[in-house]
């Protein structure tokens, strides 16, 4: 396999006052060349630490990491990769083109035309002589992408590239990233924007508390959607027939709402409803979303607990609302 990034048993442990704390635990990652790879996880999951190890900014405690065929941190690899950190800061006294020239000089490049071409590519051609202090957040993110292309990189590390941007800037950055893949570059994105990741990434890895939870192609990871079937005029006896391990079934006042996996032969269920003289109200297939997978992956965390609690509260309020409506109707 032609890998751009590979880690084996990568571990990073910090000594803290309460004892050693592993931020990254036995991480095995494989990023293929030419793909957009999404690296996901909740805050504090170890994403940025992993990126820093891959860039050689910090050392791992144990395990191996190779980038573009060289050990992580190798200066030869740095000639062929780029990094755009989360919320980047640029020297504000410089203009757009001066910033580009500064970063170009770190590669030994003295080509002003190249800097201007790249600024034009990210739609900053008209603003290249303005000081960075006058740039909006979106413009700063675009100049970050422009500087990351100075060395014509084979591999780009983008940490939250669309974080905090307005919708237009968001779409612009997303389109640029897709173009990078079309040009044959490998893009490694760490992001919380799950809809973006789902839209543009070929493969993803989800880590939680430093450990790899899922890794693979998005279409494979998101296979196994669910179907919601709603039917009226049924008896509870019929409804009970549909209860199963992976089925969520509710029945009230003759209305059945069943949430079943799409692999559970919904046709048979529909036939059974018709045979019982029930009326099928709706059959709604629901594709599994990255958000669902992400939430499953970080299950047990406070974030998810909070979310479940919030959902339960909503359901409880909804149930109360139904009861009130019924009582009012009765009155």
């Amino acid at each position, binding site marked *: 396999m032609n890998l751009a990034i590979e880690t084996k048993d990568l571990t990073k442990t910090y000594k803290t006052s309460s004892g050693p704390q592993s931020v990254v635990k036995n991480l095995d990652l494989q990023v293929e060349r030419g793909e957009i790879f999404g690296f996901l996880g909740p805050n504090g999951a170890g994403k940025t630490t992993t990126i820093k190890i891959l860039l050689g*900014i910090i050392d791992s405690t144990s395990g191996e990491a190779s980038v573009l065929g060289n050990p992580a941190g190798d*200066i030869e690899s*740095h000639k062929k990769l780029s990094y755009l*950190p989360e919320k980047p800061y640029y020297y504000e*006294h410089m203009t757009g083109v001066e910033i580009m020239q500064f970063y170009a000089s*770190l590669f030994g490049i003295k080509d002003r035309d190249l800097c201007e071409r790249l600024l034009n590519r990210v739609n900053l051609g008209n603003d290249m002589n303005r000081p960075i202090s006058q740039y909006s957040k979106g413009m700063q993110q675009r100049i970050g992408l422009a500087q990351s292309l100075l060395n014509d990189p084979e591999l780009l590390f983008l940490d939250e590239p669309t974080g905090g941007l307005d919708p237009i800037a968001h779409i612009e950055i997303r389109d640029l990233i897709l173009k990078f893949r079309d040009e044959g570059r490998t893009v490694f994105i760490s992001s919380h924007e799950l809809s973006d990741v789902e839209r543009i990434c070929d493969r993803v890895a989800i880590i939680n508390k430093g450990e790899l939870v899922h890794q693979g192609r998005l279409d494979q990871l998101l296979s196994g959607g669910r179907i919601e079937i709603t039917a009226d005029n049924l008896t509870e006896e019929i409804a009970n027939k549909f209860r199963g391990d992976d089925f969520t079934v509710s029945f009230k006042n003759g209305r059945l709402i069943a949430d079943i996996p799409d692999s559970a032969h919904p046709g048979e269920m529909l036939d059974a409803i018709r045979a019982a003289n029930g009326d099928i109200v709706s059959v709604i297939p629901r594709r599994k979303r990255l958000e669902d997978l992400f939430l499953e992956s970080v299950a047990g965390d406070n974030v998810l607990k909070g979310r479940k609690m919030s959902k339960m509260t909503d359901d409880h309020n909804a149930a109360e609302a139904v009861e009130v409506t019924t009582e009012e109707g009765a009155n």
Partner: protein
Amino acid sequence: MGAILSIAKTTIGEAIRRRVLLVILLVGVLFLVIAPGLSVLSLRQNYTVLTSFTLGVIQLTSAVIAIVLTVYLLPNEVERRTIYTILSKPVYRWHFLLGKYLGAVGALGMMMLLMSTVLVLVFRIMQQQASMDDVLQLATAPIFFFVQMSLLAAVAMFFSTFVSPIVNFFLSGGVYLVGTLFSPVFQDLSNNQTLPAAVKGAATVIHSIVPNFAQYNIQGGIINQGPELRSIELYYVQIVVYALFYIAAFLIAGMMIFDRKEV
């Protein structure tokens, strides 16, 4: 080399725009300008008082600028994440540290040049009977202050690789004070044959580790011209070589620590 110079150039650009440094510089320049008015208070030895006061202002202002400028150089880069963008390029950490140091020295040099120019102008206006030779001799002192401050910046840069800016401010300031006020004392103690070996040894260690900042205060000779300023060239060469040696030692030690530091 290109990367080092680029980092240095950018550091100068940032430093000369830092408001806190400009305020310190402005205060220094203000004191230089009003100095002739203050020296009127001393009816005798007008030239002596003016020279002593203005050179003292330049030295003190430069020392504060050197420390304030340098202690924040590395922490700011980490806090603003600019260091990550730079270190992900083919740039070694020692390139980065050396570039930042050279930038700090460059910015310091520009600010000290401004103060020295004001100093010369003040003397030309106020001491019109003074010859050009007198003025040039006066301007020699800031040159050696610059060497002194470059050494101080190297000390602050070394500490900035492992302590916070506030701690660094007091550490570097402390080293400067000890090296300026007590270095001759430690030198005398280490050469004193009558002292116990332990005291002599301790004095020698401190005298070797803490740079002798006092030797760059050549204004004493300018103010009270005496025998110590004769055959001065060799002395100047010696103290410059001494400074270069200590600067290299502090920077290399800083690079070794910074190379292993998790940023």
